[in-house]
């Protein structure tokens, strides 16, 4: 099952692309003509197709089965969306074309933005951020810009300890100091602790809602009010928007900025780690500071606001975060997804996602500890701990054993507030039959973990690879392939 590397199969003399013979011209390369081999192996098309087809079969994917990664929202990716994204009118247009040759593109961007504003109950949206973490950055920069415009630059962003790692990293990347706020025993933000910390140095808070324990923050509006009262602003991490889309509008909860992962809630495919897309919705307070470029509708047509045109309209914008207009290819997919579902279907999405998660919660909480399960229903994901496993048996063992049952593991050891956490997000695109099979598989593995079945330490047995040595990989990183003699010489 080992597939050789392209460098082991191909040579620099073979190719899978025929190129027309160039006309004879006088070279104008400034004397910098390449004078050494690059070392790029080529494959003929038959070889390349086979190489990547075989490689692909070593991957697990949504198309193969349940992908219960908590907080990742691995849902079905409709194929219509792939088709739409490839329409030449979207896929084969250049970002710097004269604006009146791309009116349909601006219409699409603006239409998608309107859907996002209406679904979140927020008045403005920035479309250009490239992914969730980039959206967070966009939100934090807008907060900082607004405070600076007020003449009230502040230094600290508060982040709950259960937050995604991107939240503190983003705040730091934007030049902020980061401070944690603790969680209550019920898995929510500790409102009292938060209120106690608020003050003139706090620029704002970054809160995930529904939070990373899979719970809705019932005090969200009170948190927002408290932060606003203290002169700060509220950022909401929208990674878990799938739980409430079409049913709750974050704008009704006092939020100032929230990014939306189009690749989660609106089903643009994850592609093995991207591309994503992270538009950010803004409150009135932050709207003037949105980054360039963006699209506005004027009467029947759409105008592009960028450096050249921003001064008249949007002098307060904090500037450009990316070259060009953002992730057009994700916009087309997300809009196709939204139009397909409609307002009624999106509501159903949230309801089925929450229903599926609670079904898992209640089908497993007799054998797995659900730390916050007693308190009531969860939202779109169910959280369990490793309590009750036999000595020496860990969440990792359980996860790897799950691979042998034909499933991708759940999110492990996150959130950090729960010991040996297992966070399971089924999404709405799984059938009851699939959930029942998964629950059955998990129950049998849990029984083994409790009984202390030693073979679990070696799992998986039926995957393309056995457990991989990650420590060795990190100790002496091998990040590129080298010709065997070179590799030896480098020892």
């Amino acid at each position, binding site marked *: 099952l080992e597939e050789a*590397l*392209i*460098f082991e199969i191909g040579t620099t*003399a073979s190719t899978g692309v025929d*190129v027309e013979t160039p*006309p*004879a011209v006088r*070279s*104008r*390369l400034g004397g*910098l003509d390449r004078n*050494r081999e*690059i070392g790029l192996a*080529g494959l003929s098309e038959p070889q390349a197709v086979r190489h*990547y087809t075989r490689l*692909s079969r*070593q*991957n*697990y994917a949504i198309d193969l089965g349940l992908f219960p990664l908590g907080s990742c929202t*691995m849902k079905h990716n409709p194929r219509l969306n792939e*088709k739409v994204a490839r329409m030449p009118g979207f*896929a084969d*247009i*250049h*970002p710097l*074309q004269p604006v*009146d040759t*791309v009116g*349909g593109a601006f219409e699409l961007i603006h239409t998608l933005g309107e859907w996002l504003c209406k679904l979140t109950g927020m008045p403005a949206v920035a479309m250009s951020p490239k992914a969730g973490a*980039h959206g967070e950055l966009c939100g934090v920069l807008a907060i900082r810009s607004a405070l600076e415009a007020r003449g009230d630059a502040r230094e600290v962003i508060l982040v709950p300890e259960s937050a995604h790692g991107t939240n503190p*990293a983003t705040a730091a990347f934007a030049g902020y100091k980061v401070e944690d706020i603790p969680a209550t025993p019920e898995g929510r933000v500790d409102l009292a602790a938060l209120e106690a910390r608020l003050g003139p140095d706090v620029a704002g808070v970054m809160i995930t809602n529904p939070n990373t324990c899979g*719970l809705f923050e019932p005090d969200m*509006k009170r948190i927002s009010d408290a932060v606003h009262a203290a002169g700060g602003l509220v950022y909401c991490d929208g990674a878990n928007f799938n739980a409430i889309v079409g049913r709750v509008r974050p704008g009704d*909860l006092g939020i100032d900025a929230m990014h939306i992962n189009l*690749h989660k809630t609106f089903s643009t495919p*994850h*592609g*093995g780690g*991207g*591309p994503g897309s992270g538009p950010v919705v803004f409150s009135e307070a932050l709207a003037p500071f949105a980054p360039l470029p963006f699209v506005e509708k004027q009467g029947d047509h759409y105008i592009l606001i960028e*450096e050249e045109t921003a001064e008249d309209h949007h002098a307060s914008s904090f*500037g450009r975060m*990316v*070259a060009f207009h953002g992730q057009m*290819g994700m916009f087309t997919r997300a809009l196709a997804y939204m139009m397909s579902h*409609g*307002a009624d279907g999106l*509501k159903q999405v949230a309801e089925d996602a929450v229903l599926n998660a*609670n*079904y898992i919660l*209640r089908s497993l909480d007799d054998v797995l500890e659900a730390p916050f399960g007693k308190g009531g*229903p969860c939202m779109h994901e169910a959280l369990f701990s490793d309590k009750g496993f036999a000595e020496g048996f860990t969440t990792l063992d359980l996860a790897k054993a799950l691979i042998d049952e034909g499933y991708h593991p759940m999110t492990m050891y996150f959130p950090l507030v729960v010991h040996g956490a297992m966070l399971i997000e089924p999404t709405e*695109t799984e059938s*009851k039959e699939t959930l029942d099979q998964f629950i059955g598989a998990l129950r049998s593995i849990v029984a083994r973990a409790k009984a202390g079945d030693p073979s679990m330490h070696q799992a*998986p047995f039926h995957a393309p690879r*056995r457990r991989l040595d*990650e420590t060795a*990989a990190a100790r002496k*990183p091998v*990040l590129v392939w080298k010709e065997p003699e070179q590799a030896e010489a480098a020892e």
Partner: protein
Amino acid sequence: MRYLPLEPADRAAMLAKIGARDVDALFADVPEEARLDGPVHGLPDHATELAVERDLGAMARKNVSAADVPFFLGCGAYRHHIPASVDHLIQRGEFLTSYTPYQPEIAQGTLQALFEFQTQVARLYGCDVANASMYDGSTACWEAIVMARRITRRSKAIISAGVHPHYVAVCQTMARFTKDALDVALPELTDGAPGDDMARLLAGIDGETSAVVVQYPNVLGHIDDLSELAERCHAKKALLIAVVTEPVALGAIRSPGEMGADIVVGEGQSLGVGLNFGGPYVGLFACREKHVRQMPGRLAGETVDAAGQRGFVLTLSTREQHIRREKATSNICTNSGLCALAFSVHMTLLGEKGLRNLAALNHARAVQAAERLAQIDGIDLVNGSFFNEFVLRLPQDARQVARALADRMILAGVSLGRLYPDGEGLDRGLVVAVTETNSDEDIAAFAAALEEVLA
């Protein structure tokens, strides 16, 4: 709803198991006043696949797509022919619908492809190592500056006037918040060397400089040897960062790494990805082995499994946000995985031979076009050297000319007035890109229309 497998009977059975009256009971934590009583107002209900395809198709047809016209736009996004097998392969469900490969036992497809991608990028750039991709070239550029700050513990970078203005704008936006000092300048249409500010860069390096950032070829197509600049940087313990927006160029000219650049970043869109109105693209990022622990982004590394078989994992994740939180080298999480795969598949199909042939063809066609267009009265070819794009100095504002050519269904290039609204003396500049997709007829049609517009 075609995407929702639960049927009413399923929902009822599940609610019974949960012990909930109805689905509303599951939203009990949401304050009453925040719960909507029905679908969100102002949005349509669900639509058939036929209807969605029809509506979005109508939007798409309002755009002039590149295949419909003679097309000469570049400046950071290039139209190349992508083999059909690239899209076929990246659409395999196992690639398309998989997640970040955190479970390596069942993600070797993605991991090995990324390892191959890293090797290709490192070799193309002439560097030791490369990461598994960034969002795009512009954000990669800023991440390189941040990385240089971490390595040098200095926070003053000099950016060449030849760097793409959008990339500069992205860096300026961020620097304003991080308090990094950026030394920037507008390019000039210097005859023979547009956008070349080598003298300024060499003069500007001092003991405070973290890095010098240059683009190669620069945004106006000019190609400059970076060797002396690299030496000067290293003499002052500053880093040289090179930005490459057109990877195909490196099939014809020397890599920045060979000339001494410490970090090479750029846009990979030319290979495998397509124009897509600016995104998603794929940021490439490569550097010296000794700096790898300061690198942002994901890295695939080789290791072995418990049975001794070779395998790949994400590694050095202690640099990353999900482990290191606010001390991470970057906040990047989702990157551009599928575009990196597309880049790598295209590069694998090309191989050394294909890439060099392709680069040679691009250059030859660009030279042909430049020579033809420069024959037109009143038009000057500004560049001495170039790869596949060059600047023409027109007798009038290039924005209007480009506009008039678009009306004649010719997308003629990027006017510098659009890129540099404040750029003095730049408004008559038009950047023209020529690739293998431009036929002789395209070039002839462009020349004829330009003559007509200028007449």
